[in-house]
């Protein structure tokens, strides 16, 4: 009886708690909007949640808001509104959904978001910068671009002590100090370094937990679906970065995953194929997209999305609270650089992922909306196929725009992909003399 109750309490807790935290987060944003308290607009690749918490700013992630419009099947309304203003069908759908959100006074299906008091963004995606320039024009509020130099070439990732790394780190550290001054000015609050220390401790727990959760999915059967469940975890990792709730969530998530591993509880009852996902999910048919694979016994054991959209948390970086600013600079540099690497220089990392997670196949999903993620995928696939003998599927659609999502066509491609996987397995079995 006690075991059953423990089982029910733990299994699926990450998803339940994630949904609850999300609701609470949006309720708090709605309250902030109603009280006309400005928010900090930030992005998933380098949100600086650790620092912003020290200023009690409501944190708004426009990317997450936009994708929610797609998941809730209303993105097309938002996209059309932005296109009516003059924004091209060929630009990022997240940007357009947000423009329409601003036109609607921050109204979204999940609640209402406050206007920006400040925007803090990195250069991990160039569109972040163009996006923030739109807010600058709309609201005449400060936008701070925290410029984080990435890897200069594949494999060129120097660390502390290297003069080029130190040049980058000093640049990031100097910008963080400028940003703190700007945050003080914007909020009228003095910076409290002890609050930053607290946030860093929470972020450390979260980073460590996230890294461990990803590692645990090497188990067979896999414990969570990197596409569906993973996106919930990602939402918490972004929205609650540096917060005690975030730290607790990931500590408990590790506990859940370890329990599932010990009990042999997989995300699928009958896991047939272990897959890796590369790209951004197809949010307009989010659930159905995952089902196209799970119906064949396929589950996503890991994805590049869980790396770059966590802003590099996957590395498990541990800040040194004794030297918070320098440590934050190093953590941001290393984390955001890794996020960029997992989009641009990902071939070897993917090869490692295939080995570590015993993957049977890899699915590339380039999207119209996002050139950051999608530009190099075809070439990356070609290079990866030369490195590893693994079947792959290349299916193009979008993360927002249902006009370029053809479910029927996608299903045909996915079905054919699984036929290939099955026949490959059969041939391999025959080669080993299995019946």
């Amino acid at each position, binding site marked *: 009886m006690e075991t059953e109750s423990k089982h029910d309490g733990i299994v699926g807790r990450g998803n339940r708690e994630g949904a609850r935290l999300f609701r609470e987060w949006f309720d708090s944003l709605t309250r902030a909007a109603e009280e006309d308290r400005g928010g900090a607009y930030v992005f998933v690749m380098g949100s600086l949640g650790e620092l912003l918490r020290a200023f009690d700013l409501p944190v708004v992630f426009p990317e997450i808001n936009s994708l929610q419009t797609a998941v809730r099947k209303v993105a097309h309304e938002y996209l059309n509104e932005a296109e009516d*203003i*003059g*924004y*091209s069908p*060929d*630009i*990022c759908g997240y*940007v357009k959904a947000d423009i329409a959100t601003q036109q609607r006074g921050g109204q979204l299906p999940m609640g209402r978001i406050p206007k920006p008091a400040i925007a803090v963004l990195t*250069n991990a*995606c*160039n*569109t972040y*910068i*163009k996006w923030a*320039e*739109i807010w*600058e*024009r709309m609201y005449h509020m400060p*936008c*701070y*671009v*925290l*410029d984080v*130099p*990435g*890897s*200069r*070439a*594949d494999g*060129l990732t120097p660390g502390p002590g290297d*003069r*080029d790394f130190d*040049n*980058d780190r*000093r*640049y990031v550290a*100097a*910008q963080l100090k*400028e940003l703190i001054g700007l945050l003080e000015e914007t909020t009228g609050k003095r910076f409290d370094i002890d609050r930053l220390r607290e946030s860093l401790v929470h972020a450390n727990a979260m980073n460590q937990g996230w890294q461990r959760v990803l590692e645990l999915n090497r188990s067979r059967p896999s414990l969570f679906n990197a596409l569906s469940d993973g996106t919930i975890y990602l939402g918490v990792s972004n929205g609650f970065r540096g917060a005690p709730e975030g730290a607790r969530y990931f500590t408990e998530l590790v506990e859940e995953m370890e329990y599932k591993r010990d009990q042999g509880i997989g995300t699928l009852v009958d896991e047939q194929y272990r897959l890796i996902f590369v790209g951004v999910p197809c949010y307009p048919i989010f659930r159905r997209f995952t089902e196209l694979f799970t119906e064949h016994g396929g589950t996503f054991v890991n994805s590049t999305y869980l790396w770059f959209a966590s802003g590099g948390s996957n590395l498990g970086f541990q800040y040194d609270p004794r030297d918070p600013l320098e440590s934050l600079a190093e953590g941001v540099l290393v984390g955001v650089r890794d996020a*960029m690497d997992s*989009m*641009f*220089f990902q*071939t070897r990392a993917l090869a490692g992922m295939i080995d570590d997670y015993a993957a049977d196949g890899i699915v590339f999903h*380039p999207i*119209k909306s*996002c*050139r*950051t993620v*999608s*530009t*190099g*995928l*075809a*070439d*990356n696939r*070609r*290079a990866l196929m030369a490195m590893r003998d693994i079947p792959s599927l290349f299916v*193009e659609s979008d993360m927002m725009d249902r006009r370029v999502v053809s479910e029927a066509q996608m299903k045909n491609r996915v079905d054919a992909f699984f036929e290939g996987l099955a026949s490959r397995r059969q041939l391999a079995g025959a080669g080993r003399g299995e019946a």
Partner: protein
Amino acid sequence: MNEVVVFPEWREKDLDGILGACLELIEDTTFPTVKRWRDAGGKVVGHFQVYFPEELADAAGLLPFKVRGASIDASQADSRFGSYLCSVVKTSLELALSERVHLDLFVTHPICDAARNLAAVWGRNVSYPCQILYLPQNAASPSAATYLRGEYDRLRRVLEGIAGAPVPNEALRRSITRFNENRALLRELYAIKRETPWQVAAHEAYVLTAVGGLVPREEHNALLRTVLPLLRSRAAHAQDRIRVVFEGGFCEQPPLDLIRSIGRSCYVVDDDFLIGMRWILDDVDPGKDPLAALAAAYLEGSGYSPVQHDPRKPKERMLLDRIDRSDARAAIVSSAKMCEPGLEEQVAYVQALDGARIPHFVTEFEENMTTFEQLEIQLETFVENLLFD
């Protein structure tokens, strides 16, 4: 330093002959100047749009070659990319895959989401090094200049490795002086466009500028030193055309025929074609630390484009200034197809132009487009409306 003359065809010719030779060169997709440089034992640094501190490559004795796509079929490169991409990214890679140009180093910049992928894609397909030069995107930060000086120092070390020799500050000072002359000559060319646009057609000015991306600056300087007085003394008369600014040519370049078409009904008195070559606005004083001088010039003495964020230079205000300075009556606000920064900026430009009551013509282009009839008719209608307004 490679002493070969890579572009002798214009010499001993009259103005029309010179312009013809330049036109042939920039339309030649076999890139003969690059080939001649290599045949003479020289090494080549290909750098993608928009801005690159070419002085560093020049000081290392390398040919800086401006990679800006080409009017070619990207048959091999197409398979390396997704569908929703601008043309210049594809045709630029095609230059390497089809072996039209042989490089010793390729450098791209995080100017946009597509371009920053290029170093990775390019690097997986060629044997020479491919890198990203991280030009600052926080240009207003007091720490940006120090950072950029360090980044240029890193680039200098890379270039020294390619050249197989150190690049002393003295060599860098000489290169900066050479490029200062080039910038002054280009400013003079643009002054002619502004002051007496009937003396140089839009496509002629474009061609004369573009040659600079294909030859050593010494040769480009010699060309411009010869051509500019010839343009000034050209017997031509003002015609009844609208003075316009063209905005949208900062990365992918519009086809020459498009520029020619615009020139038939308008005087293009200023533009952002190949803006990287004119990015630094004034002479750079190399001083004691030429790397620091170049870094400061990039940040503090430079133009604007949709791919550099600098809150001190709001792009729409800069466009209005450009229109004002050149005494233009209207603007052509264009963007390359699928160019995210260009398309996003278009909206801000249009709103600012509406606010300032400046007539504008909005369009898109692709470097490989071949039919302009519809666009020409639309533009003529736009111009007629203004002429008879």
